[in-house]
């Protein structure tokens, strides 16, 4: 028998991600809010924006984290992770990876748009 989930169930989780008000580029995978916005932070924006939720690329649903352009690099280091955080409650919501790139302080960095997708049950 096939499984089914209503879009509202998946959107519920994705909309939590969309409550993020911090997006940071990190040198190491953060596991806490403080690590994401201070300890491992190389660059940070306080105004992340989102598009969606919308249908996933294959199935399910997704939310798009909009591009963040020319964020000032605060600390030199190798960018390896991008983190989304919510300041209220100091919550680390989501962490993804990026291709390693050396960032230099006082330069800028652009985080292109990326998705978080939840697939339909199989």
């Amino acid at each position, binding site marked *: 028998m096939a499984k089914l989930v209503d879009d509202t169930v998946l959107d519920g989780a994705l909309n939590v991600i969309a409550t993020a008000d911090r997006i940071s580029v990190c040198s190491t995978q953060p596991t806490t809010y403080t690590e994401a916005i201070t300890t491992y932070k190389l660059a940070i924006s306080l105004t992340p924006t989102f598009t969606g939720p919308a249908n996933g690329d294959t199935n399910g649903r997704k939310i798009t984290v909009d591009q963040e352009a*020319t964020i000032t690099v605060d600390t030199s280091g190798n960018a390896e992770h991008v983190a989304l955080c919510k300041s209220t409650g100091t919550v680390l919501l989501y962490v993804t990876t990026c291709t390693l790139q050396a960032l*230099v302080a006082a330069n800028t960095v*652009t985080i292109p748009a990326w998705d978080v997708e939840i697939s339909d049950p199989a």
Partner: protein
Amino acid sequence: MGDKKTKRKKKPFNHVLEVQNGFIDVRDLIRYIDKNLPKRLEELKNGKAS
């Protein structure tokens, strides 16, 4: 009259990251719930859960 050399401010270099999309598998969510639900129910039953 001497030459006036205008110093141009150097434009900062813009790095562009290559970010990987995130995929959450519903089966992983269900496995997590199945694993933690008995313990959570016990906590609620004993009045220990917040």
